[in-house]
C-alpha cells in the first residue's frame, strides 16, 4: 500500500491484489487504486464492494469468491494489528428468497501479518479447484508470488493438524486452514477458518484463532481450498516513539483494561461477563432461557481455578493478553496439557446454554468444536435448539434424543456435525427450525445464530449485518446502562452501535476498546500507515461501509420487516426470571424498525455499485 495523504484523493492509494482462478490455476496480479476511503481502510469495507458487484443467488457457486484481505494497520507495530478477513456470500446467512447474504469473518494470530508481509493486500479466490489444493502465498525476488499445491495429504485432518503438517514444510510461515467441517461443506455450512498462532506452532498445542462466523471455512471447502500458507520474512515495523505512545495508550486508556489479565488488575477477558450478567439472571441457560438459579456460577473464574491452571496468553506481541487458556493440573500440581481456551461465547454456548455446568466437560466440548473447525456460536446455538426441542417432544425427539446436560449425547452431536453426518444441525438453526416448524425459539437473526447475549436484552441484533455482536455494538447496553426507550435504542443503533464494524476494516482487534473515531486510531493510522485521516472522515467511511452492507442485504432479498426481527419467543413469552426491564414487544420492534429505516434508507441511496459497470 502506498503512503499518501488521501483525504480528498483515495485513488492515490493503491493496493496489491492477486486473483487466483482455482479452476485453471492461473494467477493475476494488479495494482488497484482505491475508490473511496472504505477501500483505503480495508477489510470488509473493501471486500463488500467487490461482492456487491456480483449477482449471486447461491453461496456454493463458482462465481462466489472467497476474498482474503487485510486492514490498513495489519502487519504494522500497532498493538493488535494482525487481523485478516475472509469474505464471501455465506452458505449460512440466507434470506427468505433463498439468496445468500454477504458475510465477513476475521481473526488474529500471526497469519495476517505474514500475509501482509508477502506484499499482498488482497487475494480473490475465484471458481473452484477439481482437486484439493492449498495456496502458497510468498514474497519473491520481484514481488509476491502465488502457487496452488496439491493438498491430498491434508484431507481429513483437523484444522490444527493441517496447520502443524504445513508447518513442517514451511517453518517460516503462518497458516489459515479449514477443518473436517469445511471439507464436508455440503452438509456443514458453519465451517470456520482456523488460523495459526506463534504459541501454537511453538508448543504444538491447538491454540489456534478462528474466523468463525458465516461459514467462510465451508465456502473454502466448496472451492477445494484446504489451506492458505503465508510465507514471508518477518518485517516488524520499527517502533517509533509515536507508535510506542499509541501502544501505551491502548493499554492504559481503559478501553482494553477489561480484557487484560485479572492477575494484573484487568477484567480477565470476556469471561468476566458471565458474573456481571448473572447479577440480572441474563446469562444464556438451556437455549437462552435463564431460570433465575445459580447453575452458571459453576463456571465463574474462582470455581474453575480450583480445577484448572489458567494461563493468560496473547496473540503476536499483543499486550492485552486476552486469552485465558485452561490447562489440566497434574497430580503433583504442575501444569498439564491444554484443555481449552475459555472465552465468554464458547464457555456459555457449550456450557450453561446446553445445560452443562462442569468446567471439564465444557472444555471438552469447546475443544472438539475447535478441532473440527466449526463456528462455536453457530454450532452451540443450533445444538441448544435441538436440546430444547427434545425437551418439548420427549416422545419424538430429534437426532439422538439428547437433552440439556446430556454430555455424552451432545458430544456425539458435535462429532457427527463436524464430520458431515448431521446436516440437520450443521446447516444451522434457521433451516432446522423451518423443517420442524417450531421457529419461535430458534435463536438466529437472518440465518446467523445468536452469540451468548440474550435477544431479550438486545433489539440491536436486528440490524447486525454480520452476526449479532460482531457488527452491532448494542449487546450489553441494557445490562450496562439500563436503557430501554425507543429513543435510546434508535439512537444507539443509528449512531454508536453500527460503528462496531470499524475495527473490521482497519486491521485492529475490537479489544483495543476505544471508539473507532478516537484519537488513538487517528494517530495509529498516521504513525504506522503514514496516512492522515480526520476522525470525522473515518467515522463517515465506517458508516458508509456498514450501510452498504445493509443495502446489500436488502438487495439479496432480506425482508425489511419480517427478517429484521428477533426470535418470537422474546416478544410472545418474555422470561420472568431476567431482572432487566422487559421492553421488547412486537409493537416496540415495529416502531424501532420504522425509526431506524427512516434514518438509514436515505443514506443507503447510491452506495451499491450498478452491476456490470
Amino acid at each position, binding site marked *: 500500500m502506498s503512503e499518501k495523504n488521501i483525504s480528498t484523493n483515495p485513488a492515490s492509494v493503491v493496493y496489491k491484489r492477486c486473483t487466483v482462478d482455482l479452476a485453471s490455476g492461473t494467477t493475476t496480479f494488479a495494482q488497484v487504486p482505491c475508490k473511496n476511503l472504505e477501500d483505503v481502510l480495508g477489510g470488509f469495507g473493501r471486500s463488500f464492494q467487490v461482492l456487491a458487484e456480483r449477482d449471486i443467488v447461491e453461496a456454493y457457486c463458482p462465481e462466489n469468491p472467497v476474498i482474503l484481505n487485510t486492514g490498513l494497520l495489519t502487519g504494522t507495530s500497532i498493538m493488535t494489528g494482525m487481523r485478516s478477513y475472509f469474505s464471501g456470500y455465506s452458505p449460512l446467512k440466507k434470506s427468505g428468497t433463498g439468496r445468500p447474504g454477504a458475510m465477513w469473518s476475521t481473526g488474529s494470530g500471526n497469519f495476517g501479518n505474514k500475509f501482509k508481509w508477502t506484499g499482498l493486500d488482497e487475494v480473490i479466490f475465484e471458481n473452484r479447484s477439481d482437486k484439493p489444493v492449498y495456496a502458497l502465498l510468498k514474497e519473491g525476488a520481484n514481488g509476491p508470488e502465488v502457487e496452488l499445491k496439491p493438498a491430498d495429504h491434508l484431507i481429513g485432518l483437523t484444522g490444527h493438524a493441517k496447520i502443524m503438517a504445513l508447518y513442517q514444510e514451511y517453518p517460516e510461515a503462518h497458516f489459515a486452514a479449514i477443518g473436517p467441517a469445511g471439507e464436508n461443506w455440503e452438509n456443514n455450512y458453519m465451517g470456520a477458518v482456523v488460523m495459526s498462532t506463534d504459541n501454537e506452532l511453538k508448543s504444538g498445542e491447538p491454540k489456534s484463532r478462528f474466523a468463525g462466523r458465516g461459514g467462510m471455512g465451508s465456502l473454502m471447502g466448496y472451492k477445494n481450498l484446504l489451506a492458505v500458507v503465508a510465507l514471508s520474512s518477518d518485517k516488524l515495523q520499527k517502533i517509533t516513539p509515536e507508535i510506542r505512545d499509541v501502544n501505551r495508550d491502548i493499554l492504559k486508556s481503559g478501553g482494553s*483494561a*477489561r480484557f487484560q489479565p485479572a492477575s494484573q488488575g484487568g477484567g480477565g477477558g470476556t469471561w468476566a461477563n458471565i458474573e456481571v450478567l448473572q447479577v440480572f439472571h441474563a446469562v444464556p441457560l438451556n437455549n437462552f432461557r435463564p431460570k433465575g438459579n445459580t447453575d452458571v456460577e459453576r463456571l465463574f473464574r474462582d470455581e474453575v481455578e480450583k480445577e484448572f491452571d489458567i494461563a493468560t496468553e496473547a496473540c503476536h506481541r499483543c499486550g492485552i493478553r486476552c486469552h485465558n487458556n485452561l490447562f489440566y493440573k497434574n497430580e503433583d500440581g504442575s501444569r498439564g496439557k491444554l484443555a481449552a481456551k475459555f472465552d465468554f461465547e464458547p464457555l456459555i454456548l457449550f456450557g450453561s446454554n446446553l445445560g452443562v455446568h462442569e468446567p471439564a466437560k465444557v472444555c471438552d466440548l469447546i475443544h472438539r468444536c475447535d478441532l473440527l473447525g466449526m463456528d462455536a456460536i453457530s454450532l452451540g446455538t443450533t445444538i441448544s435448539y435441538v436440546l430444547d426441542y427434545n425437551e418439548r417432544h420427549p416422545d419424538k425427539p430429534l437426532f439422538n434424543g439428547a437433552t440439556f446436560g446430556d454430555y455424552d449425547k451432545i458430544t456425539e452431536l458435535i462429532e457427527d456435525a463436524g464430520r458431515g453426518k448431521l446436516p440437520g444441525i450443521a446447516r444451522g438453526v434457521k433451516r432446522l427450525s423451518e423443517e420442524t416448524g417450531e421457529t419461535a425459539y430458534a435463536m438466529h437473526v437472518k440465518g446467523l445464530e445468536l452469540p451468548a447475549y440474550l435477544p431479550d436484552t438486545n433489539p440491536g441484533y436486528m440490524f447486525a449485518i454480520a452476526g449479532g455482536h460482531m457488527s452491532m*455494538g448494542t449487546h450489553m447496553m441494557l445490562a450496562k*446502562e439500563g436503557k430501554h426507550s425507543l429513543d435510546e435504542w434508535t439512537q444507539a443503533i443509528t449512531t454508536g452501535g453500527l460503528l462496531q464494524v470499524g475495527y473490521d476494516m482497519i486491521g485492529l482487534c475490537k479489544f483495543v*476498546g476505544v471508539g473507532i473515531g478516537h484519537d488513538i486510531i487517528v494517530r495509529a493510522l498516521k504513525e504506522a500507515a503514514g496516512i492522515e485521516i480526520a476522525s470525522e472522515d473515518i467515522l463517515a467511511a465506517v458508516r458508509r461501509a456498514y450501510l452498504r452492507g445493509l443495502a446489500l442485504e436488502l438487495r439479496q432479498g432480506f425482508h425489511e420487516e419480517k427478517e429484521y426481527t428477533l426470535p418470537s419467543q422474546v416478544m410472545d413469552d418474555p422470561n420472568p426470571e431476567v431482572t432487566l426491564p422487559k421492553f421488547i414487544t412486537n409493537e416496540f420492534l415495529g416502531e424501532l424498525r420504522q425509526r431506524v429505516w427512516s434514518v438509514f434508507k436515505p443514506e443507503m441511496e447510491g452506495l451499491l455499485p450498478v452491476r456490470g459497470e
Partner: protein
Amino acid sequence: MQIKVKLYASLRRQKFDEADWEITPDQKIASIVEQLGLARQDVGTVLVNGLHAGWDETVAEGDIVSLLPRMGGG
C-alpha cells in the same frame, strides 16, 4: 448512615464480596466509589436496589449498592 455494598467480578477480587458501609447523608455514588478505593474507570455499572443509577445520585439508609466492572466483548 449505613448501606450495603456488593462488588462483582474483578471488583470483588480487588476488595470484598459484600460489606456494610458507613456513608454520610447526601453522599453521592461517585464519592462512595472513591471512598471504597476503587478507580471510577473500573466501574462500569452501578445499581441501587437492583436498578441502574448514575454517579451523581444519592442513596438512602439500608440501600444496596451493587458495583459491576466494565463489560466488554465483541
